[in-house]
């Protein structure tokens, strides 16, 4: 196995350690997305350092460097999926709400106690904040309005992708 690829795989396997370290950095506490970004940057930074410092890790050509970076990126994507599930999973949030309660809960109580008492509305507010920040929708009093430019454009692309793939129902 080429040295650059071996270095990429070794660094990628250790990403949970960088994530663990990120959780201990005071400025990153409670900021799950930034914690992951930190660990991803650490992976790439360590690989570049290994390539520059150790001749055995130096890629022999453009293709070998590309393959090594692909391996590193693939691993980061797998961890990203797992991280997203653990830190943002909706179903996991419901399970933890039930775990935190001393007695069985009704559906309404689960909804109210979701995410430490923030309730299910938090999900919508969180999503809406993202859509508003990206300029996809705007609030008009009690209504949600799709923006003409960006919002309508993204919907067009989304519908083309759904039609091309043959997906029946999403969400």
């Amino acid at each position, binding site marked *: 196995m080429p040295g650059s690829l071996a270095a990429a795989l070794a660094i990628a396997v250790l990403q949970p350690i960088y994530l663990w370290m990120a959780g201990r950095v005071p400025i990153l506490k409670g900021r799950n997305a930034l914690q992951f970004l930190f660990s991803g940057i650490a992976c790439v930074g360590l690989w570049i350092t290994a390539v520059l410092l150790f001749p055995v890790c130096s890629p022999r050509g453009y293709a070998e460097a590309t393959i090594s970076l692909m391996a590193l990126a693939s691993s980061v994507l797998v961890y990203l999926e797992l991280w997203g599930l653990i830190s943002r999973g909706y179903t996991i949030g419901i399970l933890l709400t039930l775990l935190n309660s001393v007695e069985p809960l009704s559906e309404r109580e689960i909804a109210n106690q979701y995410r430490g008492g923030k309730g299910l509305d938090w999900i919508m507010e969180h999503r809406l904040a993202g859509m508003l920040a990206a300029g996809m929708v705007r609030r008009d009093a009690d209504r949600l309005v799709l923006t003409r430019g960006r919002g*309508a454009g993204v919907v067009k692309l989304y519908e083309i992708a759904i039609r091309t793939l043959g997906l029946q129902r999403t969400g």
Partner: protein
Amino acid sequence: MELSIAHGFFCFLVYVAAICVVLRVYKNVEPAQAALVTAIIVFFVTATALLIAGGPINVLGFIISYGFFVLCFLMAFGALYKSISLRIMSDLSKTPSKTEVYDQVVARYIAAESYQSRLAVILKNGLAVRMKDRLALTPRGRSIALCIRSVQKAFGIQNSG
């Protein structure tokens, strides 16, 4: 190595074509499951075809490049398939005024569809049971929840959901 990237990309294109067909033919199959199983089948079929064709093939390079392209696709596919935000926007675009009352959107997508479907998944997988009108974790659900909580604690995840 150069060739393995090209091989990987070519087989990825075969995969995209295959998934478009599979999702149209097997309409009752869970799309995420179909995407994953198709990726594995296409990998073995195309790798075998490349080996039979007899050209020089760097197996490791091929696996990595194919895996990378498929993972990127699956991330985008997951976002398309699971995104409530995109669905809300798509449904808004279908209304004449491109607008809807905020509370109705919350009630329909979060409270009714999304929340109920998650509860159904939890019950179906035996992670919780219904006791009259209340839900309680099963021993399996409790051990999974405890495991997740300890992972969250270890990695300093404070707010999940």
